[in-house]
């Protein structure tokens, strides 16, 4: 019972840096290259996997590319989404009540890939369901399903050895959030092991909150772009085609989540949801 020895072994892989050779190239890089060639900004859409049920969610997902979506963010539901507002909290609850699991979210991607080999897919959520499955097993499954990137809200650079480094070694981009509280001193740390693109969170707050202001966002995007060659896209608080356009104008693209999820929550038919998405995508593409 009394081990009588040094209890704290040094942390694994102490430096935590990512070798340049391990930085993966994925469909995300291809997509940004293509957009750049066309002189277009990116439009990124978020939906919660399995919301309100597997089939509807998959139908919406399959329709997103034709609605103008350049990159799909697919939410993995979690019981305790600490960084999300009510809209996405409820989407997660609907999905879980509908029987969504991490396996089923992976299955959605496998299904989607049968008809669309090129649209990048980023899975977004919280760490515990992945940790519970086992990081290695999850990454192998994610690669097989055709996932390109991960955004894991509760894994800051301080925890890079958990998933960020292993994911990129497995060939999956690890996309980081930069926020208004990420000051110049901290920014290099946030950018260090990231790839794919940088997601700038336009507000301090949870998803679905205040309206993003292009005037506030522009200097922040410039500040980040001065420190990285990665595309910088902006999300949180974009709800209309006008804001989508205004934000995309000052960044490399715009992300919309809660506004789309609200349409799904209202029980609208898939075609109507997709035409709403098209409005937002057209906004970003006008920029």
């Amino acid at each position, binding site marked *: *019972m*009394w*081990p*009588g*020895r*040094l*209890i*704290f072994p040094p*942390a694994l892989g102490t430096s935590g840096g990512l070798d340049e050779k391990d930085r993966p190239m994925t469909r995300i890089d291809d997509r940004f290259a293509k957009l750049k060639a066309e002189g277009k900004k990116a439009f990124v859409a978020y939906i919660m996997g399995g919301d309100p049920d597997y089939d509807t969610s998959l139908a919406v997902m399959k329709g997103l590319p034709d609605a103008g979506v350049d990159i799909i963010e697919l939410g993995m539901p*979690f*019981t*305790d*989404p*600490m*960084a*999300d*507002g*009510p809209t996405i*909290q409820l989407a997660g*609850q609907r999905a*879980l009540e509908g029987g969504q*699991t*991490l*396996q089923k979210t992976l299955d959605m991607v496998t299904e989607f890939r049968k008809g669309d080999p090129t649209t990048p897919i980023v899975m977004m959520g*919280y*760490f*515990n*369901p*992945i*940790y*519970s*499955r086992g990081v290695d097993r999850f990454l192998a499954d994610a690669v097989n399903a055709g996932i390109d990137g991960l955004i894991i*809200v*509760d*894994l*800051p*650079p*301080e*925890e890079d050895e958990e998933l960020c480094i292993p994911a990129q070694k497995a060939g999956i981009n690890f996309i*980081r*959030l*930069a*926020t*208004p*509280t*990420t*000051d110049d001193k*901290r920014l290099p740390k*946030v950018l260090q092991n990231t790839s794919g693109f940088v997601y700038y*969170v336009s507000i*301090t*707050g*949870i998803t679905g*909150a205040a309206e993003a202001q292009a005037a506030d966002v522009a200097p922040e995007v410039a500040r980040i772009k001065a420190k990285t060659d990665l595309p910088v896209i902006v999300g949180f608080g974009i709800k209309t085609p006008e804001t989508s356009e205004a934000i995309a104008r000052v960044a490399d693209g715009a992300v919309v989540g809660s506004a789309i999820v609200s349409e799904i929550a209202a029980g609208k038919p898939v075609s109507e949801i997709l035409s709403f998405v098209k409005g937002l995508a057209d906004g970003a593409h006008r920029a």
Partner: protein
Amino acid sequence: MANDLFNSFMTGPDEKGRFGDFGGRFVSETLMPLILELEAEYENAKTDQSFWDEMDFLWKHYVGRPSPLYHAERLTEHLGGAKVYMKRDELNHTGAHKINNVLGQIILARRMGKTRIIAETGAGQHGVATATVCAKFGLKCVVYMGAHDVERQAPNVFRMKLLGAEVVPVTSGRGTLKDAMNDALRDWVTNVRDTFYCIGTVAGPHPYPAMVRDFQSIIGKEAKEQMMEAEGRLPDTIIAAIGGGSNAMGLFFPFLDDKDVQIIGVEAGGKGVNEKMEHCASLTGGRPGVLHGNRTYLLQDEDGQILEGFSISAGLDYPGIGPEHSWLHEIGRAEYVAITDAEALEAFKLCCELEGIIPALEPSHALAHVMKIAPKLPKDHIICMNMCGRGDKDIFTVAKALGFEM
């Protein structure tokens, strides 16, 4: 032994906020700069004598410390075995150990120039303690409390309001303590500049588990001195109830390197630790996961979704446990057991009848374990249990459970 750093259990956490594999800083980027700032400020305050002078003064004159170490004579006689002592933290101002920690965090918040304090609460004791200290210092206070707990701990809700706090009933998720913590974190992400998040237990991202432990360690420090005075030696066994684990960590920490002292944490067994998960025993019935900023043992399903616990005691109704406990459990320095609602109620009644002390339902769990083991132990075996809260807040719950019309 105690001074030998290489053989000490008291050196954690490491610079990444880990106790072995547990703990860490699993928070969103928006919060990361805030917890780094908090860590720096706390490191600074920890070595500043004026910080501790202010704490000591308020602990003495505002909280009423030191709390007595009390030999429960009739209970000892009744059980017929080990000699039972109670560390009387239920006599603190506001009726529980929670204020020990709140004082520390609020003084820190003031040093940092924060003007708005937020807190989560389950039983309402941490909320009341926070509202109290905020009233004393004229700080704005917002307390998040699960809608279900707002109902079962009504007296504490009114207390907080009297003290000028805003109580926000939390309906997100299932409206319990863990959801209150989620909503408090959401508030913090939104109000990053002026707000200080005062966490009520040894959980959350680093530095909270270590900081709250340090503030609560006054319990064990006093108990150690008082026991030396009363008995001329250390206790053989120390026992405390565990929700998030702050009163337990406070009692345990100063004893960690006293290898002859047996340490027992008591989790809430609810209706019994079974597959139906009608309990809150994270160590007895859970497995490691990541929630609320740290890696620790959690009640969760096979997909990593967090489960709701169940306990008659609102203060123990949390699906996780402080990361340091998870580590002490894995290395075997402390032992963790579960006590059911029914056993806790029996202990509650016995304590009222034999000692004239109405205990909170939380320490009633610790007492129930004392009742289990004391009769089998010799008379010269000394047990010290943490009477970390008084039962005023629980009388309605207990009346209902005993079928008594109020």
